[in-house]
């Protein structure tokens, strides 16, 4: 339904996005992951016709929207990264205005306001001034404002930054419902892995303006499927045991951690037997052994050599 082709944006000689190609099918929930400054917001601005790409194309149902953005704007709801609201007005008044500029009036407007408020769970406190809301409530109104005209596609730019866990889980649950039950198409930007793991079917990972990986969650994790991580918890450090593990050929890497030892092994290497033999020889007390499957966080670490958040 929505696709971009080789999107590129250069700000005064500085390349913010380079050759981003992505697609979103109707009813899909797609995540866009990346650390600060990766170019997520810039990509989103180009998709939502707020920013002209330096080169490349954005298409809606096969039609370019760069020359003629009105089709895209009609079906699109954008939740910006910042709180884009009139702080001196109430939530109700904000929504009323944003509904009005979409041509809603009278009863239809009133229904849309109440519906949006229900979605974000702010019906009771709708008459309060936005300025007096908590960060989480502001974020919720920020979302409600993008829902007033019942968009088919919603693009959310880090909608849960800096808010309390309660508001956060409310928002996540709401987005999940809208996507699964109402069939809303979602493009969700975040630097929280767990949010994207929970909400999205497919994920794009961005770093330094480039999309460095994409696919379903399982596909992405299979990037790491050639390796697995084994945590061995010990009652105290055993330097001799550690030395011996390091010398075992099929162990890629042995790392001493706070609680014990972390091993990175090629998948299916059947090396654990050797590990246990060594532990017996050194009279090592093993408290716990944990074989870990990779998370998106690990994928990101693997791809960029960096953590998503510091």
């Amino acid at each position, binding site marked *: 339904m929505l696709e971009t082709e080789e999107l590129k944006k250069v700000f005064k000689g500085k390349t913010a996005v380079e050759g981003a190609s992505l697609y979103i099918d109707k009813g899909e929930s797609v995540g866009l992951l990346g650390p600060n400054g990766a170019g997520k917001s810039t990509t989103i601005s180009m998709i939502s016709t707020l920013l002209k790409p330096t080169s490349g194309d954005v298409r809606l149902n096969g039609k370019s929207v760069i020359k003629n953005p009105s089709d895209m704007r009609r079906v699109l709801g954008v939740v*910006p990264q910042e709180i884009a609201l009139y702080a*001196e007005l109430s939530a109700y008044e904000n929504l009323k205005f944003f509904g009005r*500029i*979409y041509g809603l009036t009278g009863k239809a407007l009133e229904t849309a306001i109440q519906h949006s408020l229900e979605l974000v769970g702010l019906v009771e406190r709708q008459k309060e001034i936005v300025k007096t809301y908590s960060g989480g409530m502001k974020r919720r109104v920020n979302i409600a404002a993008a829902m007033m005209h019942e968009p088919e596609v919603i693009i959310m730019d880090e909608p849960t930054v800096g808010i309390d866990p309660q508001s956060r889980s409310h928002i996540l649950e709401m987005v999940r419902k809208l996507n699964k039950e109402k069939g809303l198409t979602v493009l969700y930007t975040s630097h929280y892995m767990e949010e994207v793991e929970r909400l999205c079917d497919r994920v794009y990972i961005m770093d330094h303006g480039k999309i460095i990986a994409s696919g379903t969650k399982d596909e992405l994790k299979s990037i790491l499927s050639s390796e697995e991580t084994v945590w061995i918890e010990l009652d105290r450090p055993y330097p001799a045991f550690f030395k011996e593990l390091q010398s075992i050929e099929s162990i890629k890497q042995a790392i001493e951690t706070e609680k014990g030892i972390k091993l990175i092994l090629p998948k299916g290497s059947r090396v654990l037997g050797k590990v246990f033999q060594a532990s017996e020889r050194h009279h090592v007390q093993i408290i716990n052994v944990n074989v870990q499957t990779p998370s998106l966080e690990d994928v990101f670490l693997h791809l960029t050599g960096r953590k998503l958040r510091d």
Partner: protein
Amino acid sequence: MKSVYLLQWQRFRRAPIMVLSFFVMTIIFVGALAGNNPAERPAVMAYADDSLAQNEAEDWVASLNEAEEFQFQLMDEDAVREAVSSGDTSLAVRLLEDDYRIVLAADDMSRFVIEAFLDRKYREELRLQQLEQQPGADDIRSEAAAEMEEPALRVTTSTLGGIDEFKYDNQLQLLFGMTLFFSVYTIMFSLMKIVEEKKQGTWNRLILSPVAKWEIYLGHLAYSFTIGYLQIVMIFLLFQYVFNFDIGDRFGAILLIIACYTFAIVALSMLVMSLVSRPQQLQAVVPIIATGMAMIGGAFWPIELVSNQLLLAISKVLPITYGLEALKGVAIYDRSWQELSEPISILLLFGVACMGIGINLMERRTY
């Protein structure tokens, strides 16, 4: 456009303090500086030089007071010197036989006004005295007066600058100057909401909606225009009817001039905002522009008193100069429409130019 326009009023009702403060400030400044008895003429202390007999001095004072522009009071020299040195009055006049001296405590603007007035009166009086000396001219004074009443030939000099026939009306100078000065703040800060919206992101919401971009701009521009216009009109009405100022009866002309001036300032604000795009920077820039423009353009003191060529040249490109010229033209000099058309059309031209450049520059900037 209508929703954007109405939204600004809704926001104004929620946070009216800033605009109201400029409104109140205008009233306080004009009220305080014009004094509470606006009908009274400014008083000027005078004393006679030794060369002048008491009755001659009284004659001079009487003749000076005839003009009904100032209230000259003949006093004892010591008392006057005491008043000047203690700062009770900023200046006094020493009357000589055929000349005068101004005794100054502080160099304020009233000095120029009084000097111009005295110069004119002394020349007139001395010329008449000279004629009286001529044989057969016993009755020259009454003849001259009669001639003045019914001249054989009336020569009216009217210059647009009004320098040749400078009339000083302290009240109206203050009213017009302060009102136009403070309205610059109201208008610029109101239009600054555009910059704030761009920064806060609500602008993007508007852009994504079916409302056209020109409608968004127009909504903001119309709001700033209305609020600036209303502020000026309400202050004029207040001083005209409550404080008994006399701005004359040509209300139509005054309303038109206010509209053109407001338009020019709205356009100027647009230009300023296209050059300075951060709200905090604007907070600093607006007062500089408003005060600078008011000082050079004659809002704080009559421009007729400025002789520095550079300042005069700069004043020619400031809308406030033409706003004041047109307002004084109507209220003080009762100029014809033809004479008023020059400042009015300059204001409009200025507005169109600033608006064009401003919107273009603003749109070229990528956010």
